[in-house]
């Protein structure tokens, strides 16, 4: 098993490096010269040449990537083209702020949606199921920016319970940010919960019809025990992936919500960097997001191993001969990866 984790870790690192290379190349392909952009229209050719070599732009792309990679490995993401300050610390600050909304969001949405999803799955076709399904359907269908706008209207402007926007910059202390996080947390939780609820519901239904649940029931166990001990670990397996993907999505791309609430997080930093063509910042944000994505998936895999001992075996590609081979087309396989918004 440690070997398995090691292999996953290896491929995770490879994925991040590949992602950083892709983004690096894509950014290089941007039309327009960075130097011209910085120096403006009246730049003399000498000044341009000098700045190019200052920025190391006269070295070949691949070499530059290698240099960047080495820097990045040591935590040096270069300096912002706009502010001239190192990217790393600023990114860290924004990342911290995003975490401040991400962590409560994950805690709230994951617990809530698993509970609701399981309830809906267990009470399939009943009122509880219908209302939970309907609400999650709505939550998935109404764009976040609308939800955010309505919430602001209701709970910041109408009844001034929460601040409408974050006035403090990225350096604000956590205590300063704390009152502002709740509306973003609600918006993000709604968006996230919807998918998790649906996935949990589906897999709960799936698992509840499986033979081992029937067996557990026919053993005369209490319903609660059947659900909690027998069904849940397996039912949560497909949910894990959805949770992971949603967490990654949230950390990497809360752009809209952060934009609306003027929240000084990574999403806002990213938007700003794209607006300003601040290439080192874009690259750094991309790499951090890729790392988060990969880490979330890795964690989901580890959690799956914890939940389900079968996952600890390396999956052997058994040639399909016997009766068992035909039964692999479970809907869970196809749905788990489907839930990336």
């Amino acid at each position, binding site marked *: 098993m440690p070997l398995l984790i090691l292999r996953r870790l290896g491929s995770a690192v490879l994925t991040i490096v590949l992602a950083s290379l892709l983004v690096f190349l894509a950014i290089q392909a941007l039309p327009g010269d960075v130097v011209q952009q910085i120096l403006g229209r009246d730049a003399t050719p000498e000044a341009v040449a000098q700045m190019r070599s200052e920025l190391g732009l006269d070295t070949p792309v691949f070499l530059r990537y290698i240099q960047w990679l080495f820097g990045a490995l040591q935590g040096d993401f270069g300096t912002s083209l706009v*502010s001239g300050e190192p990217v790393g610390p600023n990114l860290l600050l924004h990342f911290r702020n995003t975490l401040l909304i991400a962590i409560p969001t994950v805690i709230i949405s994951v617990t809530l949606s698993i509970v609701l999803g399981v309830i809906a799955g267990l009470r399939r076709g009943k009122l509880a199921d219908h209302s939970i399904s309907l609400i999650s359907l709505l939550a998935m269908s109404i764009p976040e920016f609308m939800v955010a706008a309505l919430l602001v209207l209701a709970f910041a402007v109408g009844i*001034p319970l929460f601040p*409408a926007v974050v*006035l403090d910059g990225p350096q604000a202390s956590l205590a300063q940010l704390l009152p502002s996080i709740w509306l973003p947390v609600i918006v993000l939780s709604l968006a996230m919960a919807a998918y998790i609820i649906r996935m949990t519901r589906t897999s709960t239904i799936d698992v509840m019809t499986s033979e081992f649940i029937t067996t557990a029931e026919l053993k005369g166990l209490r319903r609660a025990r059947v659900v909690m001990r027998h069904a849940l670990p397996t039912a949560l397996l497909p949910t894990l992936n959805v949770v992971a993907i949603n967490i990654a999505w949230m950390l990497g791309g809360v752009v809209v919500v952060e934009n609306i609430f*003027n929240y000084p997080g990574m999403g806002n930093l990213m938007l700003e960097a794209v*607006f300003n063509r601040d290439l080192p910042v874009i690259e750094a944000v991309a790499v951090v997001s890729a790392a988060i994505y990969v880490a979330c998936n890795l964690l989901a895999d580890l959690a799956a191993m914890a939940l389900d001992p079968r996952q600890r075996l390396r999956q052997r590609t058994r040639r399909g001969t016997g009766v068992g081979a035909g039964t692999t087309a479970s809907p869970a396989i196809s749905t788990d990866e489907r839930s990336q918004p």
Partner: protein
Amino acid sequence: GVSNGVAEIPLAAARGAAAPGRRMRIARPAASAAETLDPASSLSAYEYLGAIYNRLVKLDEQGTTIPDLASEWSSTPDGKTWTFKLRRGVLFHDGRALTASDVIYTLGHILDPKTGSPQAGVLAPILEPSGVTASDSHTVVFTLTSPNAEFPSLLTAYQCYIIPAGSAAAIGRTGIGTGPFKLSSYTPAGRGSVEAFAGHFAGPPALDGIDFYSVQDTSARVNALLAGQIDLISQTNLDFATARVVASSPVATVARAKDAQWYTIPMLATSKEFSDPRVRQAMKLAYNPEDIVATALQGNGSPGWDNPVPPGYADALDHTRPYDPEKAKALLKKAGVEGLQMPIYTSSYDSVFTPLAVAYAEAVKQAGIQLTVTSASSDSYYTEIWMKKPLSVSYWFTGRPVDQLLNQVFRSGSSYNESAWSNKAFDRLLVDARREMNDERRRGIYQDAQRLIIEDGADMTPMFGDRLVGLSRKVVNYSEFGFEFDYLKIGLS
């Protein structure tokens, strides 16, 4: 048509007694992360400047030059030598007293090419650093290289705020001036605060302090106001619908600054499309400013008729021109660009940009001109689009003296010449006007210059808009002219 039940937009902010001990919170759009408190710089953070600095002279709401740090000034009859007497007992925030050397230093800083000050373009042609001298500790003498009857008005620009001698390197962060407020904290594109400066020569301001916040998104700024998180939104001209929302809010209201926004449509004269004056002429003839005021401003403003000098100004040329799409068509045909097609750039930088672009594009259709309204990001609009794309929309605050307005925005080579228009005759007129010490004749020359802009200029002025400013109902004595409020009087009830 105004639908029932929604509050009308008020004409002005409340007057009244400010309560003592209050701090005001102002939201401003985040400028570039490279912004600075150096007033001479092109990237200065406007809102702070008026609070922390003073100029020698300033403009009042009627456009006349009035004293600020200078108590009186005079010139020789040829208009070449100007003497300014400084107010006594003026203190900088660090406790030093203001002397003539500070003024000399400040002008040297502005004129220093390394500073890259936009005002250098206005002052350099007539003033050399060595031309600023002190006859005593509180008298400054300007010796101009050419006569300039309007010279004092050129010192009303916000780049001319006086900084302490020797402070150039640090001023961008320290913000030490003589203003009613003293800087206590500052982050570029972030938040910052100023505190009442007890040592201010005109007595302390009504407020104890001001906190500035940068909020990127316009709606976010409005929401912050409606939620009571801030007291005033600066540099934000509310769109009509939003203004109504704000006006009907129990906590916030709207104040109107008449004709405070000067909207322009620069046609880049160096671009292949607009290097031909016939095309520029056609673009002007093809639309009716009155229609634009009606649709883009909902009537909250006055038509500009492509004359950049606001209608209320004494020097303004009284002019309307025909709206003639047929003639425009003919001109385009002559220029070989019949059925001109191109993008017109806009952004959400100002709430009227897009309505203006849309209304304009709609209007010129008649003349066979096909404009696609293209929205660019508001953050990089003034670095990526403005003065780079052939056709875009832009705006200025009104409140400049005529001489500066024409020199800054229209003279060849000025760094604010947004249309890159260059006209020798026009430039000469400006020089002539400065030489002319007779007010009446000078006005005539300025009006000739306006005529040239209308006929040949590359910058269209479809309209002047009222600026709708969102502020808290608690704000009293708000008045705004040009770039700045009256920081002394503004207060909270």
